[in-house]
């Protein structure tokens, strides 16, 4: 390392050595002369004894070992020669910077969303425990849902596990003095922190006694960032009382700063024990004893077991457990067929060092697709650089020939060229990193929800730096290797004899490179076209209802301590007042919000001439009279709900339902749907007594790709945990918000309005992933196109320059300009055709991988592929045309005089 620094102070080292040697020399001459040797003889003898030049060289070798010194000289030489040709340097640098910047930015997301292990003790030993098979019991939440009792029972399996935790993400209203605010929280088992190995930054974390029984301990642990943001990092936070859904709760501590929960997409502001379920999730049954599925289970494997061994070892226990589970209170009555499927269920253990994340689930495929695209882009950039280097190498043929003639070894020259490309790649990498950070920031805007966006950091981490460095190094080696090897092979005599007229050094290699470039960029362009068509297709289709002037917001009075009956009354009152507002044309309520990805779903029992159960879950919703009119969804048959259908909980009477067209098409084809009776659920105990009173047109419920069968019930029956209002407004959404806010404040000043948005905004939010894919693949495709066109243009110019004499002779012998044009264009045409031929099977193979991301097109959609190929071919021919035109205008005299 010291040696490396010697490079930077070599000038002062040299000066010192010179002075030292001069002193020695002078003293020796003086001594010799005083010993009687004549001056001329003394000078000669002193010089011979010392051997000045050799001593200097040897000392320099000590300062810096030879290879290092050569390498540093190479780098210096490279820098100088690159600065001499700024056009070449800028082109290669930008190619590499875009390639490396794009892949670094996408890698940053891949790393954080998919690869990054949780900051907990030995994350590699964590496994996710999941249920394979028919659960029978319903649940709420995202994925991999399990019940609390099974988590408790798994904790007894100490043969396999060092500990088992369960958790669920929830939204709670938190008030610390002021108005309640909705925040994300995690409701966890008492074992959560100890199993993960996460400690407190302040106070203590949730422990087993906090979770010993219902309402055992109304406590909360704050996340470090929530503590900082909401409480200014107050040192006396431990012991303070806050209100969670209006329940007084004691803050017992702050979690370690680096810990953000087990879900990268949902960062909790606080943790509460599962024993507080009644406060956190009002209106639920006894979640600690019921088999309802609502939590994810993570377990820490004992060191002597793999996930597969533990999974196999747990099956006998699990078989016994699912039988016991059937007698648990709340377990539904099921048919024998269903029972058989239920009993065939197995327990599945998967390694989960990254925790559990629905965001990872939805994003990992798009991210890998994009990562592959940036890989291709980087390859293209490298090829471009390699092509440019080859061109430069040919231009420098004489320089290299001369150096070879002066005794430089081929390896030495090759190293010099490699130093060129490494230097460029590293500089490009540095530029790329500079680009990557803002790119990641821009990318997070595409992430599906705001929770995920806050979790992604745009800062360049050490891992990222390592990735970028390795990528640049690989890029440098890849783009430098071919030209370097090529330079080494050059024949000395012929290269010196060569005169810009004959010789086709590297032309075959360059043609190969351009062909591959054409193939790669066609793949990217087709990908981009497919994703853009998916996005525009979805946008053009819309959600099936008119989103103009439509806003929505949610209220959750149960979380503010309302009883079910009071909550129902409050919602009705607010509904009536909002209808009366001058800024609102019409309004309606749905029990579950549209376009959020989730839904209330269940199989439905249908009673026509015969009784049968739907083969899949039907998306259900409770809606108010006027909801369909507000959305502009047409009633195709029968009638909308009205006051007759709404009735408070507990009152009996005939019930009614409305189904959509898809439901009729799938289950009631050929019969009149009106009057058909339905029952919610699939068991033999379900009484189909809900009469279909209407049929509505199809519209999207869960998301824009959803075309499922749907059934609707009146909202004002039974207990309602919350409501999402949809209002058609006059004027701007800001004015409407003002007046709606006023109404809600008057009804209850402490009730927060949740997610007030225009429907246009929600549609565009629900398409975030599609938009990310379209925007990124579009820009990658455009970049790829530009890169390969530059490459093609470069090669064709080179070919023309090399063949100028030949073309001149042809022209002199009577060929026309047009035939010269054809000659060159034919060359380009062959490369383009070969590139397209290579790309097509690749597209067909890759298409299977991302088909699920597409909508309305197949990956091998002929029109799209043909259009992309046409665009590419047109661009490529245009790029080839310029040099071809130059060739056709060669004057025979000039061409021959070139010699």
């Amino acid at each position, binding site marked *: 390392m*010291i*040696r490396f620094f010697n490079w930077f102070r070599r000038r002062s080292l040299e000066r*010192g*050595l010179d*002075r*030292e*040697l001069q*002193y*020695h020399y*002078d*003293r*020796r001459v003086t001594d010799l002369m005083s010993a009687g040797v004549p001056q001329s003889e003394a000078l000669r003898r002193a010089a011979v*004894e*010392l*051997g000045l030049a*050799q*001593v200097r060289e*040897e*000392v320099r*070798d*000590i*300062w810096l070992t030879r290879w290092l010194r050569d390498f540093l000289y190479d780098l210096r030489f490279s820098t100088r020669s690159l600065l001499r040709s700024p056009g070449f340097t800028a082109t290669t640098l930008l190619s590499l910077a875009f390639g490396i910047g794009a892949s670094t930015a996408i890698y940053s997301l891949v790393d954080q969303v998919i690869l990054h292990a949780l900051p907990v003790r030995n994350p590699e030993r964590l496994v996710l425990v999941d249920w394979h098979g028919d659960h029978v019991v319903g649940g709420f939440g995202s994925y991999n849902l399990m019940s609390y009792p099974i988590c408790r029972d798994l904790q007894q399996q100490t043969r396999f596990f060092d500990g088992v935790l369960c958790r669920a993400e929830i939204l709670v209203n938190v008030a610390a003095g002021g108005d309640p605010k909705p925040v994300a929280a995690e409701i966890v088992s008492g074992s959560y922190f100890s199993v993960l190995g996460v400690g407190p930054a302040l106070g203590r974390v949730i422990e087993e006694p906090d979770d010993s029984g219902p309402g055992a301990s109304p406590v909360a642990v704050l996340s470090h960032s929530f503590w900082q943001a909401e409480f200014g990092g107050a040192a006396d936070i431990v012991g303070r009382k806050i209100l969670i859904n209006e329940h007084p709760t004691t803050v017992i501590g702050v979690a370690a700063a680096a810990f953000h929960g087990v879900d990268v997409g949902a960062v909790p502001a606080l943790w509460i024990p599962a024993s507080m379920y009644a406060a956190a999730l009002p209106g639920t049954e006894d979640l600690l004893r019921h088999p309802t599925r609502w939590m994810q289970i993570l377990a820490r494997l004992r060191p002597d077991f793999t996930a597969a061994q533990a999974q196999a070892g747990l099956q006998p226990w699990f078989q016994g457990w699912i039988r016991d589970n059937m007698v648990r209170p709340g377990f539904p009555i099921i048919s024998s067929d269903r029972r058989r499927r239920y009993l065939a269920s197995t327990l599945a253990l998967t390694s989960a060092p990254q925790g559990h994340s629905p965001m990872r689930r939805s994003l990992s495929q798009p991210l890998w697709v994009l990562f592959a695209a940036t890989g291709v882009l980087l390859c293209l950039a490298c090829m471009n650089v390699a092509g440019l280097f080859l061109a430069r190498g040919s231009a420098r043929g004489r320089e290299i020939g001369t150096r070879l003639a002066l005794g430089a070894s081929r390896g030495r020259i090759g190293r010099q060229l490699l130093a060129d490309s490494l230097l460029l790649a590293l500089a490009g990498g540095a530029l790329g990193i500079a680009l990557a950070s803002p790119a990641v920031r821009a990318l997070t805007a595409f992430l599906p929800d705001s929770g995920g966006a806050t979790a992604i950091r745009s800062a360049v981490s050490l891992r990222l730096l390592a990735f970028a460095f390795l990528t640049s190094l690989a890029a440098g080696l890849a783009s430098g290797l071919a030209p370097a090897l090529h330079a080494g092979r050059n024949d000395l005599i012929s290269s010196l004899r060569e005169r810009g007229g004959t010789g086709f050094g590297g032309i075959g290699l360059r043609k190969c490179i351009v062909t591959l470039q054409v193939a790669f960029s066609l793949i990217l362009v087709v990908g981009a076209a497919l994703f853009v068509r998916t996005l525009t297709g979805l946008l053009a289709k819309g959600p099936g209802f008119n989103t103009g002037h439509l806003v929505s917001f949610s209220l959750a009075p149960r979380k503010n301590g309302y009883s079910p009956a009071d909550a129902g009354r409050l919602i009705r009152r607010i509904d009536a007042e909002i209808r009366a507002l001058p800024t609102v044309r019409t309004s309606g309520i749905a029990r579950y919000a549209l376009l959020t990805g989730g839904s209330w779903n269940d199989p439905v029992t249908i009673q026509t001439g015969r009784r049968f159960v739907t083969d899949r879950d039907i998306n259900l919703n409770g809606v108010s009279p006027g909801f369909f009119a507000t959305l502009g969804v047409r009633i195709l048959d029968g009638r909308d709900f009205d006051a007759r259908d709404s009735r408070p909980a507990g009152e009996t009477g005939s019930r009614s339902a409305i189904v959509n067209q898809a439901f009729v098409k799938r289950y009631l084809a050929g019969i009149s749907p009106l009057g058909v009776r339905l029952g919610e659920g699939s068991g033999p105990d379900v009484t189909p007594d809900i009469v279909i009173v209407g049929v509505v047109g199809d519209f999207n419920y869960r998301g824009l790709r959803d075309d499922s069968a749907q059934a609707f019930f009146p909202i004002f029956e039974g207990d309602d945990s919350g409501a999402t209002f949809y209002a058609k407004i006059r004027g701007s959404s800001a004015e409407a918000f003002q007046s709606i806010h006023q109404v809600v404040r008057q009804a209850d000043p402490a009730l927060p309005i949740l997610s007030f948005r225009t429907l246009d905004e929600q549609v565009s939010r629900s398409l975030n992933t599609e938009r990310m894919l379209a925007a990124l693949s579009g820009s990658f495709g455009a970049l790829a196109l530009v890169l390969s066109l530059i490459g093609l243009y470069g090669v064709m110019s080179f070919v023309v320059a090399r063949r100028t004499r030949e073309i001149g002779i042809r022209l002199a012998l009577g060929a026309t300009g047009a035939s010269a044009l054809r000659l060159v264009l034919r060359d380009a045409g062959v490369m383009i055709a070969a590139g397209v031929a290579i790309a097509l099977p690749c597209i067909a193979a890759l298409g299977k991988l991302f088909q699920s991301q597409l909508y309305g097109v197949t990956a091998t959609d002929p029109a799209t592929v043909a259009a992309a190929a046409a665009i590419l071919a047109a661009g490529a021919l245009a790029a080839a045309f310029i040099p071809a035109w130059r060739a056709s205008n060669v004057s025979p005299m000039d061409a021959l005089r070139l010699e």
Partner: protein
Amino acid sequence: MLILQILSLEPAHGYGIAQRLEQISRSVVQVNQGSLYPALHRLQQKGWLRGAWKQSETGREAKFYSLTPAGRRQLAVEKDSWARLSGAVNLIFEEGSR
């Protein structure tokens, strides 16, 4: 080792070391003056010597080398191993003369 030994007595400049070496080598071994400076720089690189510019006896500035603590330790090590080697050689000779 010879250089370290010479410098352990007092700091000296390159020419001074060369003269001392010449005095010794006249009787025993021939040391090339040209190889002195690479050796000095190598020892300095290893951290056994430090160099400083000082006034020499003729009044001109010269680079004086002196031992660092690490150099002193190294000299001890080398002396020790030399003693062991020469002791072993002596033993063999005595064995042969007996």
